[in-house]
């Protein structure tokens, strides 16, 4: 394991988060005895198959894609809820894998927090809101005095638009949107620099979603936060992000600044996604539905995993997996784009 706190780039310009060739397999085989009796082989689900990205300080990178594309697994790998099968994650230049003891991990872990999708499942129903929010403060030993902790919890509640009096209540007394505010307050309580947000608004109604998205943008501006934002909703992603990565079957197929991605999508899958979303502005338009479904990540197609659905696929696409290639501001993994077979 290499620990590399001092690298070529000076700390100020270096991205806060650097992920390199990250991969994660899940073993979904049947128990070995059954495999033995039925003569089956191990089945490996490759949820994330080599993903690289960097997030500069104070910016938002979003990962977008359909169910099963691996975006949530990336989020969980980055915060350490899963161990990677391969690849490195560096926060501020520190390789997370180099930290072996709890004592080494704690100072880094404090700097990154996660917000989960379902605010009904991510808050302990038996704890008071004040205790939920104070848990990271206590776990990292950031404040010792009870009165200091209470004051900090009140400040956090106000910061997310709730009242300090809400600390006494239980989660069931709050609506979905208010619960998500509580999750955000809990995430902020350890003064993190980096938040991983896994579909933070997809369980919410649109008017409440707008409140939470506005809150997250305000907090980013005020506290200089860096976000990794995971969503299946392209409109939400466009609203929130500086850069966007489009994922398909465990890989990033296109990575570009938000404006560029929407103005000139390159990868055929990105084009399909943008084409597919119903939008308010296009009342009555006819669209060309693209056939097919996302294949299983247990037995992905050979070559480029998008080729069975791709109208531009040729023999090379069926045999050879494309790598991300930079074209202007966009990085795209597509043979057709690379060879110029696809009109821009």
């Amino acid at each position: 394991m290499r620990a590399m706190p001092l690298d070529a780039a000076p700390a100020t310009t270096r991205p806060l988060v650097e992920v390199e060739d990250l991969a994660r397999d899940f073993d979904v085989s049947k128990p070995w005895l059954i495999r033995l009796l039925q003569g089956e082989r191990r089945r490996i689900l490759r949820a994330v198959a080599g993903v690289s990205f960097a997030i500069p300080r104070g910016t938002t990178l979003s990962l977008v894609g359909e169910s099963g594309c691996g975006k949530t697994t990336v989020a969980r790998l980055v915060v350490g809820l899963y161990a990677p099968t391969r690849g490195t994650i560096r926060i501020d230049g520190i390789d997370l894998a180099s930290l072996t003891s709890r004592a080494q991990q704690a100072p880094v872990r404090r700097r990154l927090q996660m917000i989960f999708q379902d605010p009904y499942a991510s808050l302990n129903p038996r704890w008071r809101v004040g205790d939920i929010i104070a848990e990271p403060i206590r776990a990292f030993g950031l404040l010792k005095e009870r009165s200091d902790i209470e004051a900090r919890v009140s400040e956090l509640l106000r910061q997310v638009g709730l009242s300090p009096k809400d600390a006494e209540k239980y989660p069931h007394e709050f609506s979905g949107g208010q619960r998500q505010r509580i999750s955000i307050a809990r995430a902020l309580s350890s003064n993190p620099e980096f938040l991983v947000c896994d579909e933070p608004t997809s369980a919410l109604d649109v008017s409440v979603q707008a409140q939470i998205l506005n809150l997250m943008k305000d907090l980013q501006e005020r506290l200089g936060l860096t976000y990794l934002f995971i969503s299946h909703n392209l409109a939400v992603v466009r609203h929130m992000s500086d850069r966007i990565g489009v994922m398909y079957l465990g890989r990033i197929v296109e990575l570009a600044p938000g404006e560029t991605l929407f103005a000139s999508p390159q990868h055929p899958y990105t084009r399909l996604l943008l084409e597919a979303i119903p939008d308010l502005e296009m009342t009555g338009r006819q669209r060309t539905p693209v056939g097919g479904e996302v294949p299983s990540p247990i037995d992905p197609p050979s070559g480029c995993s998008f080729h069975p659905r791709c109208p531009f696929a040729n023999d090379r696409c069926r045999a050879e997996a494309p790598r991300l290639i930079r074209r202007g501001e966009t990085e795209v993994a597509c043979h057709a784009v690379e060879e110029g077979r696809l009109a821009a």
Partner: protein
Amino acid sequence: MPLLEVNNLRVEFPTRRGVLTAVDDVSFTIDEGEVLGVVGESGAGKSITGAAIIRLIEPPGRIAGGEIRLNGRRIDTLPPEEMRRVRGRQIGAIFQDPLTTLNPLYSIGRQLVETMQTHLGLSDREARARAIRWLEDVGIPGAAQRIDSYPHQFSGGMRQRVVIALALCAEPRLVIADEPTTALDVSIQAQVIALLKRLCREHGTAVMLITHDMGVIAETADRVAVMYAGRIAEIGPVREVVKNARHPYTEGLMGSIPSLTHRVARLRQIDGAMPRLTDIPKGCAFNPRCGRAFDRCRSERPELMATGGPSRAACWLYAEGGHARDAA
């Protein structure tokens, strides 16, 4: 005469804490072959309105007032046996989760055949031939081979296609589609919506499309009803409601949806949340969240009224002497 006519519909749920009114005095019509979108946030009463029409409200919930007419005939007072014949034959239903709609123990072919035989009185052979045609029509590859497969052998998108075939196979005049694409991924959602639109146009079937996704409505519906706290806040042609919202709630709702085509620094937000059914405010239910509320809004409940455009809104701004009238 409209195909479906709902007049002053009221649905109540008795609870320990008193009677909750989930749908309160709702009236609308759907014409032959028309797609009416019904949009609103959770708890607005849109699904219950749909369930009331096909009389699938879970007891102790009940229709407490109003009337529902199909082709002029009252159907809310029909005895259960006769209502069973209306359901399926004249009104089809598509729900959000295809797994709960399909019977997991029967092959999809058997479910289609049974539905057609019950309502259309077809022979076994004819019903099976038509079932295969329907599966081809909704785009199931290898329909003749897959007709004897069971629901668990299909993906989510394919199951929803089967559900659409099942809802349409008895050739109903009206389909109630409650969040038909919410459980699906966007690329699959687009396929399913396109399919529903095409089939209903071909067969002249009217659709009541219930969803929280304004984008789906904008793309599919002819007219849209926006519901809030058990009532219709605004109803009108889709383009008009999207581009030229009259009710302050509709306006806020449209502003709070992030757009794909232009980016704003902040989304317009409506503060607060929809009231619970236990404490719906006096007057207009939206008044505590409304930036333009005045005295009348806090005391008197507005009915749908003309707005000087093609849509109608339940908002006092448009009443005689109302502020919006003067501005317009």
